[in-house]
């Protein structure tokens, strides 16, 4: 792979590094404070979770789900209300809320997958429906969330007494362990390929890539260690990201999302149930929206009628900035994570600088457009003869 190909493949990573460096400079290093680095993750947790679901929808052919912000509101409201008026245990409430999310998913997936209602319209309807229902539950008030065990499950930090008193050593230890695993996995992966008699890729690039990631992990965990340690929310987010990365990259069903987006008719003639693919995409989206609703309720500590407004746009934006095709059929979880972090860094950086909220919108809009234009133009340029 020559330099040009590397730059093309990692365009967004390079852009992220540039933007990060820019804001680190503009904020005079404040972006790098442990607290801000920790918040970067927490404030974008919902975006990462939603973007994973949104990717599956977009893969099926550039279809988006407009209802996720409203679903976040509805589920957040339900959780807050249940915790307020009943004595149910937090875990029961959580399960009930996730079940409601799944029901919303079944509802939308049914119309989109089986009745062929255009996703845009179906989820636009959902956007109004779930927002309205959420406000009905809230009775147009703000409800605080202060159930201890609920907050512990989503919004606490991992702190081991004795170990994590001054510096949160547990975070650093986890970081080093993950880093070691990343480096070792390069070798075990190669060994396993060699054992099965498959061709082995050259060691250099793969090792270099994982070493860089490992170093970043350690640096980041060190930041966390200097603040409050590993946030539980990070574990939730990582779990979702890993599960979706695995599904889209490794499983047969994940492959079907790409296939449907690439050519639906050909997929159907290959004996694949395309209705089910749509159904599952929207089911999983709403389920993740419900999880996001819980994360938001716990993080903010309250829910009101505007909770989750325009979350769908953040999720969609992350996907497109992260290289998902607006026509479907291509995009990766790793890419959309970069996209989400990219948006997150811009948001956070602008907030620290104290840029006016209205200007933040203008910057975000411009970035989104530039990213997609760049994607479209660079992909056309590589088109072959004729």
């Amino acid at each position, binding site marked *: 792979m020559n330099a040009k190909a590397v730059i093309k493949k990692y365009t967004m990573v390079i852009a992220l590094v540039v933007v990060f460096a820019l804001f680190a400079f503009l904020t005079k290093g404040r972006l790098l404070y442990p607290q801000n680095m920790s918040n970067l993750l927490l404030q974008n947790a919902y975006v990462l979770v939603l973007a994973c679901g949104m990717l599956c929808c977009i893969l099926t052919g550039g279809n988006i789900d407009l209802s996720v912000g409203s679903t976040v509101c509805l589920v957040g409201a339900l959780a807050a209300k249940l915790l307020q008026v009943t004595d149910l245990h937090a875990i029961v409430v959580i399960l009930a809320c996730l079940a409601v999310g799944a029901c919303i998913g079944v509802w939308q997936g049914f119309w989109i997958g089986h009745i062929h209602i255009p996703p845009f319209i179906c989820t636009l309807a959902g956007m109004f429906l779930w927002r309205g229902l959420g406000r009905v539950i809230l009775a147009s008030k703000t409800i605080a969330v202060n159930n201890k065990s609920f907050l512990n499950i989503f919004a606490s930090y991992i702190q081991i007494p004795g170990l994590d008193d001054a510096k949160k050593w547990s975070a650093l230890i986890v970081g080093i362990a993950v880093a070691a695993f990343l480096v070792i996995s390069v070798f075990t992966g190669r060994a396993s*390929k060699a054992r*099965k008699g*498959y*061709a082995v890729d050259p060691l250099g690039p793969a090792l270099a890539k994982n070493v860089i990631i490992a170093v970043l992990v350690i640096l980041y965990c060190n930041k966390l260690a200097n603040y409050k340690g590993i946030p539980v929310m990070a574990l939730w987010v990582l779990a979702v990201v890993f599960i979706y990365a695995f599904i889209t990259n*490794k*499983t*047969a*069903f994940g*492959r079907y999302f*790409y*296939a449907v987006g*690439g*050519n639906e*008719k*050909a*997929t*159907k*003639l*290959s*004996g*694949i*149930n395309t209705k089910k693919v749509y159904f599952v995409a929207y089911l999983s989206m709403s389920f993740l929206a419900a999880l996001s609703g819980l994360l938001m309720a716990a993080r903010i500590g309250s829910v009101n009628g505007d909770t989750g407004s325009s979350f769908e746009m953040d999720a969609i934006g992350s996907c497109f900035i992260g290289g998902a095709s607006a026509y479907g*059929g*291509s995009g990766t979880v790793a890419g959309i994570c970069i996209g989400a972090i990219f948006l997150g860094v811009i948001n956070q950086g602008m907030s620290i600088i104290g840029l006016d909220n209205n200007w933040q919108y203008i910057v975000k809009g411009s970035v989104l457009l530039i990213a997609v234009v760049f994607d479209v133009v660079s992909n056309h340029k590589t088109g*072959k*003869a*004729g």
Partner: protein
Amino acid sequence: MADMILVMKNITKEFPGVKALDNVNLEVERGEIHALVGENGAGKSTLMNVLSGTYPYGTYTGDIIYDGEECRFHTLRDSEEKGIVIIHQELALIPELSIGENMFLGNERKGRFGIDWDRTFHEARTHLDQVGLKDSEHTLIKDIGTGKQQLVEIAKALAKKVRLLILDEPTSSLNEEDSKMLLNLLLEFKKQGMTSIIISHKLNEVAYVADKITVLRDGATIETINNEARNVDEDRIIKGMVGRELSDRFPKRPHNISDEIGLEVKNWTVHHPIYTEKVVDDNVSFYVRKGEIVGFSGLQGAGRTELAMSIFGHAYGTDISGQLFLNGKEVNIKNERQAIEAGLAYVTEDRKGNGLILPQTIAVNNTLARLDKVCSRGIIDRTRENMVAEDYREKLKTKTPSVQQAAGNLSGGNQQKVLLSKWMYADADVLILDEPTRGIDVGAKYEIYCIMNDLVAQGKSVIMISSEMPEILGMCDRIYVMNEGKMVAEMDVADATQEKIMAAILKSEKTENEGE
């Protein structure tokens, strides 16, 4: 000296990494029909795109002299102003607009306020009469067949005051009857003094219609054959195209047809999916033995594709009735997945539309129909997948640098091979190949035929739907003829001729008309 309307001198056009045209020369005499032939990738379309200004002046080297003056076209519009109109293989018509609206799209007849629709439709009618299309100028494009759409394209060119008409594969999606009509129309225009350049793979048509035939190979001009006396035969042209004598266009095979029947269909009736009262296939029965290639001949719209797709897990049609037997046992197949599991494969006629996932790699396409074979517990083993694809690449001699190449980057013939690989990997016992050689060049056709021979040698049953009669006659053991949804004849290849097949079709139309 002859009166040359067009001289293209030493045209060289490079794409990154490829020299698509290398010092190509083309001379076209006024009032002749000039054919441009060559295998896929020989540079025919590229040459025409240079001529029409699709590749603007400056992106190629060499001179274009049209009507005695040197031309430097920067856009398509520049060349159209001079009367050069190109009609592409994929028609550029908007389905939801009327014939008249389409004809003047981008060339609107403007009145004082906006478009003068009365004049538009009046002129449309005039040109439609010239091409002999009776349909109303207000009919929507989607409501007329491909043959008629092709005529609309020509009428559209006439509306642009065309003097040099370029047709890129005009008959590739037409049946024999419509093709013939189109070619005769070109001959008619020639009498009126129009010059045409025709790009075609169908060499019999080229021999029929062209006065001169220029052969391109690997981006270079090989020769120009004079056919004014209509004395050039297909083998002569093929020799120029492939650079050697292709002694036999259809590879021979030992005929080891088993007595066992692979697939049998009885009284199969299919209704149209939208206009449910319309019968698309009417009480059709047929069978195919193991080790046998059976051909389905007929005109376009005979219901062959619909028959095949409805058998393949009801992928087409509603209200399907009839019996289906596989290996002698009656089966009830309700969807595509069941069809694949039962050992059926339908290799579509429309590679791009519903065959391949063009942006995905060859490997992904290769395994899509039977992804479970490279999965364990739902998890894909990518290395194994690549090995499978690699294996088929070698077996079928697919020309590609790697199986990680997107299917969309391959030529038609190689795409067809990937599509065949996909269905061979699906372990089908009965393969239905729908127009397997449409739009691919002579060399690739031969290879596809060889693959078909291999399949039957393994005891599989092959059904080939084709509109090209020589191919049906050359490859099949037995031939069914369909017309308007009915099975009208069955003949052994030994007794079959093109005339007999056509006669069967025509006879059935006659009896039908008398019956009404």
